[in-house]
């Protein structure tokens, strides 16, 4: 009887409102979907539900206070936000950061990348229905949060860096804990791969879904794993090295098809590359101070600068203007990778099925706190 039933499904044009309260829009994203049966014929991505005015707030805080505001943008990767901001101000003020501080910063940033990717992997797999991967990934993320707690006392919003270096040196024995974590993490990655990489259903759900060509990806201004998934070589860590990345060896994984599966493989590979960087950082950790010579009152001379780093989600840039008189920025603007990647969502989901919409929200890895700021 159902032979007749299948084709008649696509008679109605239905407008449904996905979010802002929806279990898989990763916070408060809202998508107005126009459906033809199960197929999406148009989508309207609505953002702004978690706008807190971080940029405007920052223009009324002094330079050090802004660090803890940046924690609250990409709240699953606070350390990289801190890093980007501090480096921008250092660039503006031409402060030399001690080598040890740069090493520790790199290690922290890479740990943060693993934590962020763990969260992405868990929720992405959960969206596609593999609920066990979610808890496995969160189990490892928990260990990283413990490491951060050991280092700075906080588990989510670290406020872990200062302009000119770091507030604290690493505690005794911390490097061994990190090494032990790296070994553990390396043994856990095959566990994820076993559940997903060669799983027929996972392949069917991700391969050929949300394909975006390299040209289109560049045209849409994508960055980070979604851009590299389409085979475009762009990684701020390599192109414009910051912190201590120019001293380390690591590979930048590239995709070929630009589909969801490629983006998944790339992020899995980035786990391994991050572990490699962390190990190099710990092994080659130089002795010395962790704080550079910074004036007591931070007051950059008039000027403007843009500085970008590679956050787990892509190119995170800060554009800061100082008028040279006040102890707060004249203009503070963030280029959040999630926001730019979210641009790609509409072209990605049009033409796909409803079930793919959640896959595609997952694959571009957005954090709404960063999109809306």
């Amino acid at each position, binding site marked *: *009887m159902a*032979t*007749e039933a299948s*084709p*008649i499904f*696509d*008679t109605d044009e239905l407008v449904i409102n996905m979010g802002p309260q929806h279990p898989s829009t990763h916070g408060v994203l809202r998508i107005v979907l126009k459906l033809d049966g199960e197929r999406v014929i148009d989508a309207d991505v609505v953002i702004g539900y978690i706008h807190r005015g971080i940029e405007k707030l920052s223009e009324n805080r002094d330079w050090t206070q802004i660090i803890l505001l940046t924690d609250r943008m990409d709240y699953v990767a606070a350390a990289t936000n801190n890093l980007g901001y501090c480096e921008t101000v250092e660039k503006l003020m031409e402060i030399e950061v001690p080598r040890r501080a740069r090493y520790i910063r790199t290690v922290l940033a890479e740990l943060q990348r693993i934590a962020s990717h763990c969260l992405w992997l868990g929720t992405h797999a959960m969206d596609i229905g593999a609920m066990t991967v979610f808890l496995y990934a969160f189990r490892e993320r928990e260990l990283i949060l413990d490491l951060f707690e050991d280092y700075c006392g906080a588990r989510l919003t670290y406020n872990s860096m200062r302009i000119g270096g770091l507030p604290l040196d690493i505690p005794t024995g911390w490097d061994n804990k990190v090494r032990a974590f790296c070994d553990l993490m390396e043994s856990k990655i095959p566990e994820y791969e076993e559940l997903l990489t060669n799983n027929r259903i996972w392949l069917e759900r991700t391969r050929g879904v949300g394909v975006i060509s390299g040209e289109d990806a560049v045209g849409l201004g994508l960055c980070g794993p979604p851009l590299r998934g389409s085979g475009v070589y762009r990684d701020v860590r390599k192109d414009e090295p910051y912190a201590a990345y120019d001293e380390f060896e690591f590979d930048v994984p590239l995709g070929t098809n630009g589909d969801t599966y490629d983006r998944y493989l790339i992020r899995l590979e980035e786990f391994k590359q991050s572990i490699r960087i962390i190990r190099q950082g710990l092994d080659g950790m130089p002795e010395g101070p962790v704080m550079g010579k910074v004036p007591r009152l931070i007051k950059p001379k008039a000027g403007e600068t843009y500085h970008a780093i590679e956050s787990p989600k892509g190119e995170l840039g800060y554009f800061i203007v100082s008028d040279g008189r006040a102890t707060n920025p004249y203009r503070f603007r963030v280029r959040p990778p999630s926001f730019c990647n979210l641009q790609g969502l509409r072209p990605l989901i049009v033409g796909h099925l409803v079930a793919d919409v959640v896959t595609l929200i997952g694959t571009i890895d957005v954090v709404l706190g960063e999109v809306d700021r």
Partner: protein
Amino acid sequence: MAEALAFYTLSVLILGLAVAVITTPNTVHSVVFLVLNFLCVAVLYVFLQAEFLAVIQVLVYAGGIVVLYLFVVMLVNLGRSPEEHQDPRRLGLIGLGLSGAVLLELAGIIAYSYTREQSPPVTAAQASPVQGNIEELGWLLYTDYLIPFEVASVLLLVAMVGAIVLARRES
């Protein structure tokens, strides 16, 4: 006694549900009443020693055909009730009267036939090599009624193709 009780209960249910089907303004409710009606008819078949038909009634009618109706009712999402527009040439009362006449006529035929002497059954029970309702039915279907059976299957195939062609949208 028990049989009579069951028969009258079922009859009341079947007729009541049938009336509900054709009088309910909401089409979805109509469909649900239709399902219940078919289920009652299936129970009636069990009383008539036709277990296989009872099951088929539930499986094909209630579980298959009526689901299709429900689909169509849900897809044909009406902005206005079809009863709002009436063709002036339509004569509803005459329809009602005609139906009543048919009922009377049927009742008359039944009453008349029972005033006459009962004729003996046309055919005696056919000797069948197998026992049991399903087995005998299967035997009949695959021996005496093989060709009608095949024709029915072709009919279903044709209907399936036809339905796909009709319901499909030109793209």
